[in-house]
């Protein structure tokens, strides 16, 4: 059975890494947005969302990530998705998210992308 949604976070050099596991539905999407918001108010502006263990996502869950993009665009921050399942990557492309967010293979790749560009 698909595992229930869980989320782990790590802050490394003022960069927030959110790693999810399980189905990103409305509840999961909102949990990601809330976790982001908590760190955003304390100043975090660079965010990595690692979807390695979320092969199943829905558009309601993903729409919460648009809120994150909104906040970060307002404040000159950056969002990078990592470890995307190919179909999830296609989904985010169709939604146009990669006009506002990056994608990298791994969290390490995302961290170095942020380092060289910031």
């Amino acid at each position, binding site marked *: *059975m*698909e595992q229930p949604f869980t989320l782990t976070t790590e802050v490394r050099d003022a960069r927030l890494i959110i790693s999810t596991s399980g*189905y990103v*539905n409305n*509840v999961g999407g909102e949990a990601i947005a809330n976790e982001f918001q908590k760190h955003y108010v304390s100043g975090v502006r660079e965010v990595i969302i690692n979807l390695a263990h979320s*092969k*199943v*996502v*829905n*558009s*309601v869950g*993903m*729409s*919460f990530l*648009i*809120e994150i*993009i*909104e906040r970060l*665009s307002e404040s000159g921050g950056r969002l990078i998705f990592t470890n995307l*399942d*190919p*179909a*999830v990557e*296609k*989904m985010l492309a*169709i*939604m*146009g*998210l990669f*006009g*506002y967010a990056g994608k990298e293979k791994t969290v390490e790749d995302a961290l170095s992308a942020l380092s060289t560009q910031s």
Partner: protein
Amino acid sequence: MKEPVVNTTVVDSATDTAVSLTITLPRIPDIELVALEGLERLARHLGIGEEKIGEARIVVTEAIINALEHAGGAHPSVRVEFTISSGTLVVFVRDRGKGFNPATLEDPVIQKKLGTQSKRGWGMKLMKSLSDDFRIQTGKSGTTITITKRMR
């Protein structure tokens, strides 16, 4: 442009048999995952690749969550049918909700979602983009979505 069809079709009897799975889901959280498991087992059994399965998963998830959201009645339920035949998946998803007018839906665009209240409204676009044919029959007694997707 498609090539004209010629009459010497090669029928692979192993893959040409239609395989179907039908499921009627009650409205409980995440129940769409049960249908997805059915779809995955069907598709893997027929040797379909993981990326196509992933795309089908998205299409099917969107169809079912819409149907569950709008299914009416005392015992809201949604009927889902998968058939894979000659490498093509056909999905029916039917609810007994009040229907809607698809013509009034605006195509969602990310630029417009930024700065406005509702970020939702992506399901239809995703289903259309990730399928080869997408049909809606909708009216006062419910909605049926029929999606066709080539899996090879």
